[in-house]
């Protein structure tokens, strides 16, 4: 396992233990994280940690599972499934008590110091809204 893959995976493990500072230490101080699913960009460790705290308020038992990492040198791509129970307000919507399972992909670019300086995340936020009962899935043809 390369150093960058190891940093990525240990970061996910720290995240699952709510070790925000530990997980954030894998990122450069001024790192950019783009969440394409929510169309939000976070800049710097404080905003990144803030996004995690917001998520954990909505889903206190949230965890990232089924990790698969693809090593491309200075870029590591990781697929995972985010799982959690909606026990708190999230995205301005009240808790539903429902469980969510959401496939995710993270594309993390590492700088020369071995820190993530840019990460892009892709997921389907509509699937999450449907699972929470906040939206209705259109019937596929």
């Amino acid at each position, binding site marked *: 396992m390369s150093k960058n893959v190891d940093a990525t995976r240990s970061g996910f493990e720290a995240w699952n233990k709510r070790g925000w500072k530990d997980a954030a230490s894998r990122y450069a101080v001024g790192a950019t994280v*783009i969440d*394409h*699913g*929510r*169309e*939000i*960009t*976070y800049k710097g460790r404080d*905003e990144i940690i*803030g*996004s995690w705290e*917001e998520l954990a308020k909505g889903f206190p038992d949230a965890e990232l599972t089924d990790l698969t990492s*693809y*090593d*491309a040198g200075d*870029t590591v*791509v990781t*697929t995972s499934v985010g799982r959690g129970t909606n026990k708190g307000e999230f*995205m*301005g*919507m009240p808790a539903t008590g429902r469980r969510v399972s959401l*496939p*995710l*992909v993270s*594309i993390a670019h590492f700088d020369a110091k071995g820190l993530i300086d840019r990460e*892009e995340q*892709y*997921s*389907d*936020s*509509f*699937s999450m*809204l449907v699972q929470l009962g*906040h*939206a209705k899935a*259109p*019937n*596929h*043809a």
Partner: protein
Amino acid sequence: MASKNVQTALAVYENFNKRDIDGAVSGFAEDLVFEDHGFGQTYKSRAEFRDSMQSWVDGFSDVKVTTAKTIDAGDTVILQLEGNGKNDGPMGPFTKPTGRSITVPFVELYKFDASGRIVAGETYFDMLTLLVQLGHAERPAQPAAARS
């Protein structure tokens, strides 16, 4: 020089953009398994994946896909892509075209066998982004400080 797998991956949407859908899927194994996480569907053959590509053309006749980044991880190639097009045809359950244009970022992962065929894959995109742009849904409130 790009690896053979990267060349095969890039050819998918190069051919798609030329409306050569058969050429677009020519690098896929016939028994391909491809997970579409945006639509929540699994295509279990090259033919099913071809049908999904055709459905995009049916809904967006001018659809064009550009490659933002190519990531070579050996037997897996990951493409960061952006789809652009005008909704002038049916799209799944939405049979009435909206006339609206979309810009949707997405990622595709292609997994290759030893002979260079794509045997499995995944696509990730945000269906909500698509539905909002088409006027079929509204995006929930976002934290103002962090909005893109």
